[in-house]
């Protein structure tokens, strides 16, 4: 996208900044009224996430190799372990190699944690907050809460717990999706959720998809029924938020981080040191809580009508 001066972009830069400022004010009012504390954690850290699908930006700070955070999750969990009350943060996060209409390397995240809440409670709160923020921009109908298994059945005609390679391939072909190499089950599911299901979701409803396959648990707890207690919020094809019933067990964290690093090695990526400060905080005790991360720029796209996240950038290079 060619950005010259303010005047030539389809969205006036001032309108964008005003919409952003309005949104931040509303977010702060929302949480102040609910006694959720705003916190600030470091952007630069010695440790970063081991997630095989996320590439962190490296910096050299004082002769030491450090990373820009991809989310404030680990730092906020350390705070939760330390003083166990509800917290939120609005901050910039960074993910290398993510660039497109809905992705930018640097973006703004709203992340918050509710101690003692279930992830269903938190979904309802996300619903309240986002409805309020979208008020006046989109005439929203009633929100929908649907299980991962059910939405796959509805839009792809397959059961993600039992579908085979051929079933996924068939749905892909029907949707003009032609993967060049063999995909894992997880990769098929991710591709179909984004390119088939999300592509067909209504743009005037908040759709919460919950209870994910175990391989996509990230740091969510796994239920007795073998489902990851995780949810995602979509409005149309835009994924806005990702939330969990947070995993609190330190050993399980270490197991998952080690598994992440194996997958990183398999993908030819460098394995990364686990965040020992996080592990220490988990051993001290993370209270039961539910947490969620919301992409503020994507929400702003819905509020301003921007078609491309780059339209929201102030002062592009």
């Amino acid at each position: 996208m060619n950005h010259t001066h303010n005047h030539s972009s389809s969205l006036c830069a001032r309108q964008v900044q005003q919409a952003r400022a309005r949104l931040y004010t509303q977010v702060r009012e929302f949480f102040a009224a609910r006694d959720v504390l705003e916190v600030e954690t470091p952007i630069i850290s010695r440790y970063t996430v081991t997630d095989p699908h996320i590439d962190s930006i490296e910096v050299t700070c004082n002769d030491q190799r450090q990373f820009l955070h991809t989310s404030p999750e680990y730092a906020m969990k350390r705070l939760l372990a330390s003083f166990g009350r509800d917290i939120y943060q609005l901050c910039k996060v960074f993910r290398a190699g993510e660039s497109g209409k809905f992705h930018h390397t640097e973006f703004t995240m709203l992340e918050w944690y509710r101690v003692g809440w279930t992830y269903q409670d938190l979904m309802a709160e996300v619903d309240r907050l986002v409805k309020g923020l979208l008020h006046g921009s989109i005439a929203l109908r009633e929100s929908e809460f649907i299980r991962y298994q059910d939405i796959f059945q509805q839009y792809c005609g397959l059961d993600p717990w039992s579908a085979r390679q051929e079933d996924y391939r068939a749905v892909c072909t029907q949707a003009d999706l032609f993967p060049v190499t063999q995909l894992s089950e997880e990769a098929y599911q991710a591709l179909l959720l984004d390119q088939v299901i999300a592509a067909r979701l209504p743009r005037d409803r908040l759709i919460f998809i919950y209870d994910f396959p175990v391989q996509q648990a990230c740091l969510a707890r796994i239920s007795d029924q073998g489902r990851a207690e995780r949810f995602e919020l979509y409005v149309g094809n835009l994924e806005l938020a990702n939330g969990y019933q947070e995993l609190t067990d330190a050993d399980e964290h270490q197991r998952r981080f080690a598994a992440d690093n194996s997958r990183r090695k398999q993908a030819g990526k460098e394995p990364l040191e686990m965040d020992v400060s996080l592990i220490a905080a988990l051993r001290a005790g993370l209270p039961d809580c539910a947490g969620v991360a919301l992409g503020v720029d994507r929400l702003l796209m819905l509020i301003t009508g921007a078609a491309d996240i780059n339209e929201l950038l102030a002062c592009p290079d």
Partner: protein
Amino acid sequence: MAAYHTNEFRSGLKLILDGAPHAIIENEFVKPGKGQAFNRVKLRNLKTGRVIDRTFKSGESVEGADVVDRDMQYLYNDGTQWHFMEPDSYEQYAASRAVVGEAAQWLKGQETCCVTLLDGEPLSVAAPNFVELQITQTDPGVRGDTAAGGVKPAAMETGAVIKVPLFIEEGEVLRIDTRTAEYVSRVKE
């Protein structure tokens, strides 16, 4: 030829897919939530013109195609080979009738064409956007019929046949848009 990583994908990039040279016409970055990222790409086969859809996992590499466009002067044809010359190097290239394709009907000699080379061999030829050709045959027009509207076929000196307004006469030189095969204007002496 070097391989391209998915994060280098952009419109216009030339790749080898299924053994044939393709150009990327659309490239979409797809990354669902915390999952595997993909590039959803539309490509045109440079030999057949067919457009295909392919989804690449982020991180995959694809072989680049050694495809370049060069301006060359059309020299002549002997019925089976069309001969072109690069003006800077005087290097000559021969292209078959199939490779020259649609462009053949517009060429009489000396025109600057865009020749696409794959691994140094002509892959396709594009005639210049506009050519000036003389009409060799067309039915006489009705005198005074200068109003817009009616058209009649006219055969050009190269063999091309296009539609021209009724007032155009045999022997006239016309400016033609080769991209649309349409009459643009008469060329005044």
